[in-house]
C-alpha cells in the first residue's frame, strides 16, 4: 500500500511551462528534444537551465525542426530512453508525420503541448486545434486547467504510457498563456514520492545488439489490420491502468483527480458547460455567480479526451437538460460546422435514453479570454433552449451574435 511521504515537498510559485519542466525533471527524463515556438518554448528554456545547472542529467538536443524533434524522440525512445519533447501551434502540425509511427511502434514518448492558434494569421493566442487535430493518432491526450494539474498530469501520463500493458505516447496539453504563462502555487513533491509512483522506464523490445529486433517493418495489406487492432486495443484496454494510476497518485501525493471528467456544481443543474482546459477556471467563477442568483448551471470538464470516456460522458451528461460545449477549437465544415468536441459529445450521448439538447459555442477563439459576461450569455442561450425544448442552432460564435 503506497504511503504519502511528507519529506522534501515544497510549494513554489511558477507558471504552467515551468511546471511542465519541473515534472520532466522529477521524472528524470533521459533525452529532451527542443525546438523553439511560443508559448511552449518556456518549458524548454527552463529545462536547458536545469541541465546547465546539473539539476537534471539528460541529453538536451536542440533539433532543427519539430519533425526532427519527434524523429529524435522516436529513435531515443526505441533504445529505451525516457523522452520528453513538446510544441505549440503550427509546430505540432510540422511534426505530424511522426505521430502515427511513434504510437504504432508503441514508443511512450511524452510531448508537452501549450496550445497556440494555427496560422493564418500568425496569432500567438491559445486554441486547442493544434493538438486536437492529432487526436486520433494513438496518443493518450488530456488537458490541464492550471499549473499544478499540468505538473501532475506529466507524471501520471508517463506512468500510464510506460506501463507494459499500454506502451503508448502521451500528449500532455495545457492552454497557451492561460495556463502556460499564468503563475500560481505549485506543490513540488519529494523525489521519493515520484520514485514510488513512477518506476524506471523499461521497454520490452529496445534496439539492443544483444537481442536484435526489427522495428516498423514493411507489411502486406493483410498484415495491417491485426497490428492496427492491437494498437486500438491498447488504447481501449488502458482504461483500468489510467484509473489505477490516478488512484495511486492520490494516495502518494494527496491530490485526487477524476481521470475522466471534473464535475463542478452539477448537483441539481439543468444546464452545463462541457469544456477542456484553462477556461474552466473562469467557468467555475461564473457558475458561482449564477448559482447565487438561483440559476441551475454547472460544468463538466473533460480531463482525458484520448482514450475518450464514452460511457462516462454518456452517464454524466444524461443527467442534464442542455449541454453547452465550449469548443476552443476549429473543425471547419464538421458536424456542427464549429468545433470538434460537439461530435464527441453527441456520439457519447447517442445511446442515452435521456438525451440532453447539445449546442456548441465557439468561444475563446484566437486566444481570447472567455469573460464572465460571455459565460452569462451562453448560459442564457442554454436556458432559452431548455424552455423552448429545442436548440435554435447547433453552433453559436460567441461575441458575434446578440
Amino acid at each position, binding site marked *: 500500500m503506497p504511503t504519502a511521504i511528507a519529506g522534501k515537498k515544497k510549494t513554489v510559485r511558477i507558471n504552467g511551462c515551468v511546471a511542465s519542466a519541473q515534472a520532466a525533471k522529477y521524472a528524470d527524463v*533521459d*533525452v529532451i*528534444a527542443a525546438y523553439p515556438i511560443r508559448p511552449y518554448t518556456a518549458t524548454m528554456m527552463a529545462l536547458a537551465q536545469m541541465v546547465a545547472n546539473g539539476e537534471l*542529467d*539528460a*541529453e538536451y*538536443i536542440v*533539433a*532543427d*525542426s519539430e*519533425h*526532427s*524533434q519527434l*524523429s*529524435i*524522440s*522516436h*529513435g*531515443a*525512445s*526505441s*533504445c*529505451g*530512453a525516457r*523522452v520528453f519533447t513538446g510544441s505549440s501551434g503550427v509546430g505540432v502540425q510540422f511534426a505530424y*508525420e*511522426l505521430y502515427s*509511427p511513434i504510437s504504432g*511502434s508503441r514508443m511512450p514518448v511524452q510531448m508537452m503541448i501549450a496550445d497556440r492558434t494555427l496560422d493564418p494569421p500568425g496569432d500567438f493566442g491559445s486554441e486547442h486545434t493544434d493538438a486536437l487535430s492529432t487526436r486520433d493518432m494513438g496518443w493518450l491526450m488530456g488537458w490541464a486547467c492550471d499549473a499544478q494539474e499540468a505538473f501532475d498530469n506529466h507524471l501520471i501520463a508517463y506512468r500510464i504510457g510506460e506501463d507494459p500493458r499500454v506502451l503508448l505516447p502521451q500528449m500532455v496539453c495545457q492552454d497557451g498563456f492561460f495556463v502556460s504563462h499564468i503563475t500560481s502555487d505549485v506543490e513540488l513533491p519529494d523525489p521519493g514520492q515520484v520514485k514510488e509512483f513512477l518506476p*524506471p522506464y523499461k521497454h520490452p523490445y529496445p*534496439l*539492443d*545488439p544483444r*537481442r*536484435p*529486433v*526489427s*522495428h*516498423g*517493418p*514493411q*507489411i*502486406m495489406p493483410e*498484415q495491417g489490420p491485426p497490428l492496427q487492432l492491437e494498437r486500438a486495443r491498447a488504447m481501449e484496454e488502458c482504461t483500468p491502468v489510467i484509473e489505477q494510476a490516478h488512484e495511486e497518485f492520490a494516495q502518494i501525493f494527496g491530490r485526487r483527480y477524476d481521470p475522466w471528467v471534473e464535475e463542478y456544481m452539477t448537483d441539481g443543474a439543468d444546464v452545463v458547460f462541457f469544456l477542456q482546459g484553462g477556461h474552466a477556471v473562469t467557468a467555475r467563477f461564473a457558475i458561482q455567480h449564477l448559482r447565487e442568483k438561483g440559476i441551475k448551471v454547472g460544468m463538466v470538464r473533460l480531463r482525458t479526451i484520448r482514450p475518450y470516456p464514452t460511457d462516462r460522458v454518456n452517464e454524466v451528461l444524461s443527467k442534464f437538460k442542455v449541454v453547452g460545449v465550449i469548443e476552443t477549437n476549429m473543425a471547419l465544415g464538421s458536424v456542427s460546422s464549429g468545433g470538434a468536441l460537439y461530435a464527441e459529445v453527441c456520439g457519447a450521448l447517442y445511446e442515452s435514453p435521456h438525451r440532453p439538447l447539445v449546442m456548441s459555442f465557439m468561444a475563446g477563439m484566437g486566444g481570447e479570454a472567455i469573460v464572465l459576461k460571455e459565460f452569462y450569455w451562453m448560459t442564457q442561450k442554454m436556458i432559452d433552449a431548455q424552455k423552448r425544448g429545442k436548440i435554435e442552432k447547433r453552433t453559436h460564435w460567441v461575441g458575434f451574435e446578440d
Partner: protein
Amino acid sequence: MATYIQIDPTQKLDPFKSVKKLPLEEYFTSGHRTCQGCESALVMKMMAKAAGPRSIILGSTGCMYVANTTYYSTSWVVPWMHTQLGSSGSAALGTSAALKVLMRKGKIKNEPINVIAFCGDGGGADMGVGAISATLTHAEYNSLILMYDNESYANTDIQLSGSTPWGANTTFSSPGKVKRIMHRRWKKNMAGMMAAGHPECKYVATICMSYGLHGMNSIRKALAIGGPTFIHSLDPCPKGWDYDPYLSHEMGELAVNSGVWPLYEVENGLLRLTGRTEQIAAGKIRRVPVRDYLLKQGRFAHFTNDDIDYFQSKIDDMWEKWLIPGVIPFRRDVEADTPPSS
C-alpha cells in the same frame, strides 16, 4: 585548452586488408526482395559487414526499407528500425543520444555501439537534408549517415529527385513531342555540401560499391573516427537507369572512370581523392568519355549529340574549372552556362 566536446569511445575497426580477409559473417542476409542487380542491396550487405554485430541500423523510407524488411522475413541480423523518409539524420541523433545517456546513467552496459542511419537520395538529398545537416553539427554524438544514391525515387516508380542527373528520363521527366529534356536541374553535390558546410564533421566520403573494399573501409573509418559522419554512395539501379541487371558492377566502374562520380574522402578536414579518381587526377589514367557511360543506360536514350556534349562539358568543367576538382564547385572565373535548347 578545455575539452568542450565529449565523444564516447568508438569500436576499433581497422581497414580490411583484402577481399580474401573479409569476415564470413553476414548481418544483412536473406529475406529481402530487392530487384535483380540491385547495387543498393549490396551496399546494405557490405555496410553491415563492415560495421559488424555491435551496431544499430536505422533505415528511412525508400527501396532499402520497403524491399528489405518485409514483416516476418527481415533481412537484418542487427537491431534495425524504420525511420520516416526525412528522418535519417534526426533518428540517428536521437538513438545516439539515448545510448550515450543510458550508458552514462548506468541503465545499459557501457560499450561502443555503432549507429548507422541510411537514406536514399530522396530521403537524404531532398526531404531529409536539413536533419542530416543538423546531425552533422552535433559533434558529440557518434553516428554515420549513409546515403545510398540510385539517382531517383526508385521505389515509387522512378521519379526524379534532387540527385537525378541532368536530362534523365524518369516518370516525372519523360521526353515528349515538344520537350526532349524535361529534367533541367543539375545533380546536387551532397558530399561536397556536407563536407564544406559542417566543419566539425570528421569524415565525409563518396563511395561506389563496384569498389567494395574501398567502400567498406570508408564505412569502417567513418564509424571509428567518432562524432557524426556522412557517406554518399552511388548505386547503379537497373530499373531506374534502364540497363541489363548484369551490368550493375560495370556501370559503377564507368561512373567513376568517366569522372562523373569522383571518389574522395575528407578526413578531419583533409581532402584526399581516392581509388581510381586519385589516378585520374594524377594523370595516370584518362577519363572515359561520358558517352560510354550515358549510352549504356535507357534513361539517356533520348539524348542527342548536343545533349551528350553538354553533359561532357559539365563534367569537364568539374575537373578543369572547379577550384577543388570534383568536390566543391567554386570557380576561378565567371562563365555562362548554356544548356542545349530542349
